[in-house]
């Protein structure tokens, strides 16, 4: 009995430490976003003169003169935010869909085979810097520069392997008998796919989707190189700099704001993380 209490207490302690460890930098970021320019380099956890200037800067950049070194007037953050939303959402949908079908075929029929699957990992193995010049050359020919379609395709192509591998892990764990039973009852292979597999593989879909969404949401290098005027959010945040250094407070504010959408998504998907195993298959 005592053992149980001790173990429980220990687990609670670890959890609390983990939460505190996670939260401290975030709290510091939040306070940074409310600090005035002069306070950015101080260790204080709470701002002495809290200000909304950093946030105002994001939405109505005409508020010049807030920052001493004549910062650049940029477009309000709404534009890049919506652009990034479209890019990330579309890329995620494409990648997850393609990844799902591929994972199913690989898991059940070895089509594509294990070697191909392994090959898709190649897309994640390459340090991105050298890929910049070839991609720029290629996309310029295809008129995909400064074009959200270019980024969507690039992100989908480079993250689909995540979807494949994560989903394959989940699909592998589903007993084949259920599909065979459904097939015997006259369902078409596609119906099996949609009505049997998807509900059970939902956690996989959701986890893979979230990661791919996040990768597209925060990617910077290619977004920078492949766009000029239609910039996504990550590039926009990098532009909050002045003649004497980065506007840390504004960047913190921008990062916090831009993390709200992924945060909401992360919260909503959680009920899908519990699989339908407990529901069991009642038929047959």
């Amino acid at each position: 009995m005592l053992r149980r209490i001790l173990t429980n207490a220990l687990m609670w302690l670890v959890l609390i430490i983990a939460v505190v460890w996670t939260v401290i930098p975030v709290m510091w970021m939040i306070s940074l976003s409310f600090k005035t320019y002069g306070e950015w380099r101080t260790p204080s956890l709470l701002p002495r003169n809290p200000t909304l200037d950093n946030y105002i800067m994001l939405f109505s950049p005409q508020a010049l003169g807030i920052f001493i070194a004549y910062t650049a007037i940029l477009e309000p953050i709404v534009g890049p935010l919506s652009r990034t939303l479209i890019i990330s959402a579309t890329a995620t949908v494409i990648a997850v869909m393609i990844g799902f079908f591929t994972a199913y075929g690989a898991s059940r029929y070895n089509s594509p085979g294990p070697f191909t699957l392994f090959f898709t990992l190649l897309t994640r193995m390459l340090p991105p810097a050298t890929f910049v010049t070839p991609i720029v050359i290629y996309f310029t020919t295809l008129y995909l520069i400064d074009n959200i379609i270019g980024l969507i395709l690039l992100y989908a192509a480079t993250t689909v392997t995540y979807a494949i591998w994560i989903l394959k892990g989940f699909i592998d764990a589903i007993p084949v008998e259920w599909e065979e039973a459904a097939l015997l009852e006259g369902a078409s292979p596609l119906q099996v796919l949609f009505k049997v597999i998807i509900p059970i593989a939902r956690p996989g879909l959701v986890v893979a989707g979230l990661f791919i969404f996040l990768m597209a949401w925060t990617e910077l290098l290619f977004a920078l190189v492949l766009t000029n005027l239609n910039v996504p959010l990550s590039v926009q945040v990098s532009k909050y700099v002045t003649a004497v250094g980065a506007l840390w407070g504004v960047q913190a504010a921008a990062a916090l704001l831009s993390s709200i959408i992924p945060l909401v998504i992360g919260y909503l998907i959680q009920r899908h993380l519990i699989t339908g195993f407990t529901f069991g298959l009642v038929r047959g």
Partner: protein
Amino acid sequence: MGGEKASSEKPKKFDPDRRQFVITIGSAIVALGIGYALGYLTKPVERITTTVTKTVTQTVTQTVTAAPPSPTPTPVLEYPELSDVARRAVLGVKKLIADGVVPKGATLRILHVAGSKAQLEKAIELWSKYVPEIKVELITMGTEPDVYTKAMSEAVTKTGAYDIVTIFSTWLGDLVEAGLAKDITVYFSKYDPEYVGPNAPIEPLGSYTTLYKGKRYALTLDSDVFTLTYRKDLLNDPKYKEEFKATYGYDLKVPDTWEEVINIAEFFTNKKLTSPRGGRVWGAYFYVEPAFAAYISWTNIFLEAGGILFDLETMDPKVDSPEGRYAFDILLKLKPFMPPEAISAAWADLYDKYIHGESVLTAAWPSLTKMAISSPDSVVKEVTGTALMPGVKLEIGGKPTIIRASPNPVNWVGIVSNYSKYPEASYLFLQFMTAPDIGLEVILSGVILDLFRESWFKDPKYRPKAAAGYGAEFLDAYLESIKISYPDFIIRGGPEYASKLTTAVNAVMAGTMDPKTALSTVAAEWDSITKKYGRDAQLEAWRALAQLFPEPIKMAWKAKGYMK
């Protein structure tokens, strides 16, 4: 799950099965076609420009005449309120429009860095008053490496996406050799931006920031000459003067040599003073940070000691030499009297420390002085003094002479893209925005572009405005500093040469490498860079650049036999 490899396994690229091969290639081609179509159909439309159109409250009431005059002087002077340089630019553009070379409503695109946006927008505002037919659009990047990356990208893809690029003079060699920077020597002759005469950009800066291998490739927008910034109150304090004289045997004054800098730095660091915000006061703060600036301090001392970067006959690196060792010697002696963060923090930390009163002697760009006298956070507004950079005592012709030179790192210049649709109009925009009258207004409306024309320092028409922005004492010291300023490594590979040097200097300061190894490593690395691009080509550029160095340095080189 079908343990043995089923017959339907098809490894992607290595299967000899012809069908799979065809599918792979076929899908690549199909996807290429689809991508091309998609991209073409959805490519971003030519933007209607969004120039800033604030209503200008200047006292100009002259209406622009309808008939565009020719650029040669006519009996009736168009735009009498403009300087000659600006007028020639405006008239030149009007002629281009009239001749149909540039259509009305055309857009010029400028690639630039965020920090310069305020000043460029001022330039655009003034431009659109006189030349509303041509719009100017800004493509803004967050940091300088981003501008470099985009410019290089454009050099490779040649899309004509930018007409003008504002770049660091350091990159001029790279961008000329990459084919992006257009040779504008012919425009210099045609439109005369007055690089000679009382209005000229101060020599040698006007030359070395715009010439490459003897031809003009840029107009300078800026100057970035370092001056020695010091705490007047501390150096003039009678108590400290007394103690200093007692300890070191000579009067406390603005240092003339680096050895004197070390003494002053030691003296004040040992006083263990504290700043108003509770930080420690250090005697000195010179750049030794790893991201890019460490090479500045080292090269400054090296050149003043008479060192030459590359042999003028063979392009061999000459950094592993007594002058190179001397430079490290000085820096290492300074190290205990500089804040340890100097070795790891970003360049803005130097600014932060000085304006909060935590360093006594320091050196940086003109923006440091501007910030010190006008930032609300600054505690040193009244007590900032400016002087020439300290020098090195050498024997020239039997006489001991102090050789002084000021670094001019980075320095924004404007280039015209070789792939621009309207190169002449682009050039004229640059000439307009750097004209004696327009240029001063542009510079005074922001921070990162600084004064470069001599008339701004001397001409009573301009000097009061400049003094209001920078402080009169600073102006005089700054003018002298520009006259003895030397260029960055403005040859092909300049950024790489500088970067390798910075890494080595930073390593030595951090204690992870000893000076001897550092110097030989840098020499070897520089040599392989030179080999990469061709010794002769590099030598040609270096020889041309060496001629543009300031007199004191050339004098030292000649005295040491490095230069004939």
